[in-house]
């Protein structure tokens, strides 16, 4: 993530002290050296409310993930209900795709992976995408 100029921030309604204990007692046994990124405390759910992921009934933030570019614009978001975890590979794919787009103006078709076929939008390409790219 550092190579891609990406900062990760995690957010929950727990206190910073709970974060500390969780990191010490459990997470450091799953990740060498413990969690490397800042773990934010959102005890009244105010940040979660700003992003539309705070659930007042249960008093917690649901699993929302927002990809924010270097200009502070949200480029992508994913929101999952509690039982299912995220897929970091998909996040990485999206970061690489958006960064590639911002660098080159090219666009990434469905299912694109790093190094895969990209398209250069143009009037000539309209109606001719099929010549350049086919779904697998």
């Amino acid at each position: 993530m550092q190579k891609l100029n990406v900062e990760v921030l995690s957010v929950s309604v727990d206190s910073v002290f709970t974060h500390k204990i969780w990191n010490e007692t459990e997470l450091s046994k799953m990740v060498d050296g413990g969690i490397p990124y800042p773990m934010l405390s959102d005890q009244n759910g105010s940040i979660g409310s700003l992003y539309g992921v705070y659930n007042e009934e249960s008093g917690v933030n649901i699993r929302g993930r927002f990809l924010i570019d270097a200009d502070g614009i949200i480029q992508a978001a994913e929101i999952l209900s509690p039982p299912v975890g995220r897929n970091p590979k998909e996040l990485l794919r999206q970061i690489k795709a958006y960064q590639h787009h911002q660098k080159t103006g090219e666009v990434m078709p469905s299912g694109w992976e790093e190094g895969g076929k990209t398209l250069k939008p143009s009037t000539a390409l309209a109606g001719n995408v099929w010549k350049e790219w086919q779904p697998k």
Partner: protein
Amino acid sequence: MLVGKKAPNFTAKAFHKGKITSITLEDLKGKWVVLCFYPGDFTFV
């Protein structure tokens, strides 16, 4: 729907590498940010 819009700014206390710090989103301009919400510490997923 927030996609395509400016990310709402915030300041929050954070635990980072053994220390308690404060993070303001706007201070991170120039970097990409992945903001991950989750239900709570010591949960299972």
